[in-house]
């Protein structure tokens, strides 16, 4: 291992600009003559849109345009789309309703944009927006997914507000196994709706160049090429080669910046109409209404056990809330990213899952860190824990009995796990967490009036998204390969162009570490170029913990080609046979001699072209590659949470957290740990404090940081984080991916710990101190009543 190669905890290259205030986020970009967009949004959750009077607004000072959905339709700007086709049980396609960037005939949630004001200054735009009169006819609204089917129909295409009724697995075999079970554990769960809340609010800046009839969009995107593709091919804004999308530094994404949103479409359209650059920057309260939310499932699940505590079947019924419209990848989240993970780490012979996706009058719901996999883990890990309690078994013991122990393992729900050692991560986590000493800690806590609980989560996820043919057969509208281009400069420095996008992951460091390892050069000699469709040919972006497993594999392929060509050139220059050239530690050596050339010398030779036949070998040293994975990757591990509850107040505190994860090869353990920390915080946030509250009329009541509880530093203890390692066999580096693990594992660990402490399963996420206090009161009352 070189000092900056694979496995080194190299300090991040990108940090210099961030710690000095020199980051370059979308809102930091300003263009000459730029104007400002302000969106007028519906205050009603469900209403017909009769008319919009913009005359008074248009006459205000500084106003360049006031545009509505009618104008959008007039200019033939297409609708936003959901790019993953799901078919119902009966074979019918999902019911995708039209989603115009500005509502034209009806509004479907509070925050649905109905008009935009373009002005010289933001203040002028806001002032003019006050003068817009919208005539709404208010309709009855629904926010609860469990009530959606009987509520007022939101979209003409979707009777009973049902988008699809999908299923996976063998219903008959599962029912038979349930009928034959020795014990069945049943559970009802709500997976609470979350607001992603990346700290940088979304922003878009669009500029039109009439000379070339082309558009440029600076955008807070996790996948600028996909944005360009959708805005071009489906929205019809401009041909792909006339649209450049730049996603500069992006301040966190967590999924919410994958999607193609109305605002960037409107900014592009408006920029062309007014002939000036148009900038929109969301403020936080707007972000609560304008960014796709996450989760929001209601689930009933049953797990069957035989007499030995072996799981024989799992049956799950979920209603998934997709909100007012179908967001870009929304359909895939509660289906192929969810039900396919219901086997967890366990050998379960029979699984059947039904998912009904519904429209409601709420903000659209789409992927949020983990996307489907946290929901699946929550179902499986809560069932296993409750099952153990009901069977009178130690929860770790029950898990051990059911762990998959040989690989590859085909689950009944599509996935073929390729490698793992679940016992190893459980054992290591139990040691690190000192599970043996828990009884003593619990007794100590009791002496101080505290209830102490311990909860496990032995999770699995499918990452490295994803083999193109496989996802294509499941309905994906795109392939999920990744591209890379390695450009070696004549002086030996290297630029790597990647289709991945970093928004906190540290690719500028980890990708450079790979190049450093392979080419034997310092990471300072390497630049990672990403986030600009004019620079990088194409790419699928960053989400689903895919950039290491898929993106870096593409770089490996390109580096293989670079090395092969460099060897040919070195052979000519050193007048040796190509087969005799060895490349190690940055040096090309003729085997068995002391003749060698440094990497930089070969790079120069490649560009000078003096010493090899350029008819046979082209000058230059630059190679590109597309890598399509052959399987998903399967990161897995064990998280153990210990909590303490104050019996008097219900105040609940996470007092210890242990995570042992198997991510395969680690490129930079420091960065991996950081990813785990962040994921845990989001998972604990979901389990304990974060709650998106709608009233029955569809008003969002938790619409700012005054009411939506964001995790703060004092909500957490220091985390104990470690790893085990089984290499991923399907990609050249053995990487599995680490970005989502914490968010996937954490909610179940927290709830298992809280219910362990309380001695009741009757508490839902978020288990706030108030909710815990209520659960304690209910238990006390029941106890008194029983006496």
């Amino acid at each position: 291992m070189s000092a900056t190669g694979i496995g080194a905890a190299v300090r991040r290259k990108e940090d210099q600009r961030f710690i000095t205030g020199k980051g370059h986020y979308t809102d930091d970009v300003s263009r000459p003559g730029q104007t400002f967009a302000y969106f007028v949004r519906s205050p009603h959750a469900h209403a017909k849109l009769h008319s919009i009077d913009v005359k008074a607004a248009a006459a205000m000072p500084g106003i360049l345009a006031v545009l509505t959905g009618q104008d959008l339709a007039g200019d033939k700007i297409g609708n936003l789309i959901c790019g993953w086709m799901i078919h119902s049980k009966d074979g019918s396609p999902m019911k995708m309703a039209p989603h115009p960037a500005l509502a034209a005939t009806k509004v479907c949630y509070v925050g649905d944009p109905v008009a935009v004001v373009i002005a010289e200054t933001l203040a002028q735009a806001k002032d003019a927006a006050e003068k817009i009169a919208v005539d709404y006819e208010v309709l009855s609204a629904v926010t609860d997914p469990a009530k959606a089917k009987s509520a007022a129909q939101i979209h003409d295409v979707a009777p009973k507000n049902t988008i699809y009724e999908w299923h996976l697995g063998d219903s008959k075999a599962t029912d038979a196994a349930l009928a034959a079970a020795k014990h069945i554990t049943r559970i009802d769960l709500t997976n609470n709706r979350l607001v992603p809340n990346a700290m940088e609010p979304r922003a878009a800046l669009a500029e039109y160049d009439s000379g070339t009839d082309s558009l440029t969009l600076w955008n807070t995107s996790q996948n600028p090429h996909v944005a360009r593709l959708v805005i071009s091919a489906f929205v019809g804004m401009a041909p792909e080669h006339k649209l450049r999308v730049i996603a500069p530094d992006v301040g966190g994404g967590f999924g919410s910046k994958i999607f193609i949103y109305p605002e960037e479409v409107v900014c592009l359209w408006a920029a062309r109409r007014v002939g000036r650059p148009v900038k929109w920057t969301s403020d936080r309260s707007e972000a609560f209404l304008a960014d796709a939310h996450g989760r929001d499932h209601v689930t009933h699940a049953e797990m069957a056990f035989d007499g030995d505590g072996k799981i024989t079947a799992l049956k799950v019924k979920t209603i998934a809330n997709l909100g007012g419209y179908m967001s870009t990848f929304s359909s895939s989240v509660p289906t192929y990213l969810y039900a396919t993970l219901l086997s967890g780490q366990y050998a379960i012979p029979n699984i059947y899952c039904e998912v009904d996706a519904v429209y409601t009058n709420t903000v659209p719901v789409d992927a949020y860190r983990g996307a489907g996999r946290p929901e699946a883990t929550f179902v499986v890990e809560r069932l296993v824990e409750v099952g153990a309690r009901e069977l009178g078994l130690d929860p770790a013991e029950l898990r051990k009995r059911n762990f998959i122990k040989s690989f590859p393992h085909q689950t009944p729900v599509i996935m073929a796990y390729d490698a793992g050692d679940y016992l190893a991560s459980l054992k290591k986590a139990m040691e690190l967490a000192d599970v043996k000493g828990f009884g003593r800690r619990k007794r100590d806590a009791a002496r101080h009036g505290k209830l102490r609980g311990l909860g496990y989560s032995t999770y699995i996820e499918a990452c490295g998204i994803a083999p193109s043919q496989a996802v294509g057969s499941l309905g994906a509208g795109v392939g999920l390969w990744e591209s890379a281009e390695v450009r070696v400069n004549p002086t030996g420095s290297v630029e790597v162009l990647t289709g991945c996008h970093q928004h906190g992951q540290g690719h500028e460091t980890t990708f450079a570490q790979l190049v450093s390892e392979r080419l034997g050069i310092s990471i300072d000699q390497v630049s990672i170029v990403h986030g600009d469709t004019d620079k990088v040919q194409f790419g699928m972006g960053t989400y689903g913990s895919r950039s290491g497993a898929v993106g870096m594999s593409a770089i490996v392929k390109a580096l293989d080609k670079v090395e092969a060509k460099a060897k040919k050139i070195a052979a000519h220059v050193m007048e040796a046979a190509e087969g005799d050239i060895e490349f190690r530690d940055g040096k090309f050596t003729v085997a068995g001699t002391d003749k060698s050339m440094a990497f930089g010398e070969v790079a120069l030779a490649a560009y000078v072209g003096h010493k090899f036949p350029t008819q046979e070998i082209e000058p230059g040293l630059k190679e590109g590659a597309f890598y399509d994975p052959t399987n998903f990757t399967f990161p897995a591990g064990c998280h153990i949470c210990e909590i303490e509850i104050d019996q008097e107040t219900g105040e609940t505190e996470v007092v210890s957290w242990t995570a042992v994860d198997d991510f395969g090869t680690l490129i930079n353990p420091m960065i991996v740990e950081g990813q785990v920390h962040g994921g845990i915080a989001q998972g604990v946030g979901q389990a304990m404090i974060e709650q998106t509250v709608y009233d029955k009329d569809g008003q969002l009541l938790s619409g700012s940081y005054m009411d939506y509880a964001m995790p703060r530093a004092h909500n957490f203890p220091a985390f104990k984080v470690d790893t085990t390692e089984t290499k991923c066999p399907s990609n050249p580096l053995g990487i599995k991916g680490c970005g989502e693990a914490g968010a996937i594992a954490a909610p179940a660990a927290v709830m298992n710990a809280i219910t362990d402490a309380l001695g009741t399963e009757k508490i839902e996420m978020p288990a706030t101190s108030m909710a815990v206090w209520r659960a304690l009161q209910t238990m006390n009352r029941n106890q008194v009543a029983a006496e």
Partner: protein
Amino acid sequence: MAMTMTGEVQLPASRDTVWAKLNDPATLKACIPGCEDLNMLSDHEFEAVAVNKIGPVKAKFKGRVTLSDLDPPNGYKISGQGDGGVAGFAKGGAVVSLTDKDGGTLLTYNVEAQIGGKLAQLGQRLINGAAKKMADQFFENFAAAVKG
């Protein structure tokens, strides 16, 4: 976001006087907090503009107010919907009833109101307090008006 509020206020005037003032646009205009404009459209319907602040959200509400269930001089229902533009909306009604008490009139009110949009998103925790304050202010003004 719905809210309800009830209250009563003792007014130093006869039931007939109070009833007359309750139906007098000029009195209502003077008493409604933040009221900038109030125009009669018919005997029992008027258009009003009021500027109000709830928590961090300040808005100019424009809307129609209707009087119904008129039972002179015992009471009526006053209801309306105000459009606050980008701040959202407020709508609701109050059942007002008058009874003789201690040589004056006891006015009791029963309010049901709903807010939406930014008002609900940012102002919901403050709405009850704000509504109470507005009601108090209205009746303080109204008590002065019936006295004078």
